[in-house]
């Protein structure tokens, strides 16, 4: 294994984690009105 392989693998795991968090966890929270979406609406109104 090359030294940058480890960096790539770690970066990939982090990226996958972030993608899933962003679209599923944060997305669901927003759909339930608990996330940033609700704050957006509150600020606007």
């Amino acid at each position, binding site marked *: 294994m090359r030294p940058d392989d480890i960096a790539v693998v770690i970066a990939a795991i982090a*990226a996958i984690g972030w*993608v899933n968090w*962003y*679209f*599923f966890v944060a*997305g669901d929270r927003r759909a339930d009105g608990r996330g940033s979406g609700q704050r957006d609406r509150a600020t606007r109104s």
Partner: protein
Amino acid sequence: MAAGAGSVTARLAANADAPVVRIDIPVSGMTCAACQARVQRTLVRQPGVRDAAVNLMTRTASITYDPKEASPQEFVDAIRTTGYGADLPIDRSILEEQEASDRAYAEEYRGLATKAGVTLAAGVVAMIVSMPLMAPAGHAEMPPASDPFMRWVSRSLTPIVQRALPRLYSIDPRVLSFALLAMTAAIMMWSGRTFYARAWTAFRHHAADMNTLIAVGTGAAFLFSLAATVAPSFFVTRGVAADTYYEAVIFIIALVLVGNALETRAKRQTAAALRGLANLQPQTARLERDSGDVDVPIEDVRQGDVVSVRPGERLPVDGEIMAGSSAVDESMLTGESLPVVKAVGDRVIGGTINATGAFRYRATTLGADSVLARIVRLMREAQGTRAPVQRLADRVSAVFVPIVISLAIATFAIWYVAVDTAPAVRAFAAAVAVLVIACPCAMGLAVPTAVMVATGKGAELGVLIKGGEALQRAGSLDTVVLDKTGTVTEGRPTVTDVVSYDPDRADVEILELAAAVERRSEHPLAAAIVTSADGSGSTLGAAESFESYPGRGVTGVANGIAVAAGNPRLMAEWAVDTSAASADVVRLAAESKTIVLVAADGRLAGLIAIADPIKAGSRDAVTALRRMGLDVVLLTGDSDVVARSVARAVGIERVVAGVLPEGKVAEVRRLQEERRVVAMVGDGVNDAPALAQADVGMAIGSGTDVAIEASDVTLVRGDLRGVAQAVALSRRTMRTMKQNLFWAFVYNVVGIPVAAGLLYPIAGILLSPILASVAMALSSVSVVSNSLRLRRYDPRAV
């Protein structure tokens, strides 16, 4: 805390009483199930919205909301924030709406086709220009292009390009790279703009769709190429080929656009049946006025106006014939191939064609209430509905895109670690291929396109199917319950036999005498006798005196003759000797006919037998249903004897007789408890509860009286063969849907691993991003084409 909870309860209670309004808002720019789901989610979350259903095929959002809490403009704004187009609906007729939707499809197709054409041409130019860059001579120290497709293209085209454009190879590779960069940026901004804009809006809403995949795929390829162009030494010093993917970016955009264009065209074709129906409406009507006949626009026709029609003309509106007679071709609405004879008093439908005679008729239903507009409206609603089988596709496409992005990242990492030479480039190509090949478009189209084509096909045959759910249930039927009166039989008692026992009186006179007294009766049997007498040219008016004996018959004096018409009991009361008729009475009763004995001046004159004749297609229909493996049950309120004789005549073995309307519901429920999937076929008026209880309620119309709102399936033509056609069409459609879903899933299940390079270690097969985009475009097109095959299916052959 308690106060807060109380106010919530109060608000909910108030909401329950508040009147809700439904509005249909046209939405543009949706391309797949994920787009549709996103718009729908946004709308459901709007304050005041009770329900929202977004339809990908008809491109409308149907929103039920409380007008006190929300306004249509807010919905339009909300849809626009998701990145799709929306406008307030314009108040127009259903036919105009259909035209507008056709125009929108045509415009969209033109736009997409132009962009696809230009982008494809740009792709070819980019490929030629990048030839010198890919040639090993271009950067001798580097391995040739890592994209296998491009490598193949490069190998086979280089000699040709070298011969045709030798000067291209003398240009500085850096200049060529920058030229490609400029061209790609221009294409991305012009033809790819919508993908990036929509992907970005989706991303801001924590959502991902097909646009996300294309945007991330091409965006990553572009950024990689940009870096390779601007700072090639950075790559070269690290032993990585400074490959560019400009032509791939352009080709991916071009091919996705080609796919979208073909898809739009195919979607337009799926609505062909609907367009055909909408086009049936003539634009003008010839009205009879004091000054003579005048042509007026169809909008100016009022109820009660007298319309004049000549042979060969299309009837402009629905109405009732006042003078003249003709044969009218109603095939476009009822599927009935032979022209139908129409005379004074008969109802005619707007949009049908007058074949032979000229006639005048009074306009009855107009505009949105007309039969044609109602059929078109029902079809539009039906075509947009979703079949339950689609839920699987919906669930998958909702989580699909983030999973694919994850897979693409994993692909990159694995390739990077596993490959020794130029790991970043190979890893990159595989990751982009994964992103590009995976698109939920085909999954989103699998069911709606089939629903659309099938409901359109049904409409052509006079079988109106109310949407995907009805189609799916009709496809899984195993039992068909037929109501007798008006469904298997005509529902109109008709005189079948007339026998004279008086040598001085002909059959017609018997009928005439009976009609004279029955003319004043309101009994249904009386109507049959009077109609028959009138039909045979009776000139005898109503009897001078008349008396009715409920349950027995009528008596009166007609033309100086004392007439009694009724059952044997009445004859006995009148001391009439009926022995001459006894053999006929026994014979006709066995055929379950109702017998009316006629006496003149105290002596038996004759006998009239009345029956409800079996409809022409009933026997064929029952045979077809049984051949399709369906159990056929005859259900009726009539006596067992009558029911069995009808059942025998049409070939039904299972009979349930003597049931009241509530009993019909119970019978259907009982069959359902036996785990049968039951269709109830009835006239839609008396049988409404049983139709509602059945898994599929089929209302049988009589041409003009289309009870299309009442049932799952409406047979416009009052012919039972439509039942078999509806079942056959539904079964075929379900098969098409399942094929579509299967291929859409298999395509992704196979396509993604191949794109990720799973076959590389085994067979050395690696999928280029360009080939991946070809596969993606093909998958959508193949699903839509498979649905379009339904257009050629003819269920009449069952």
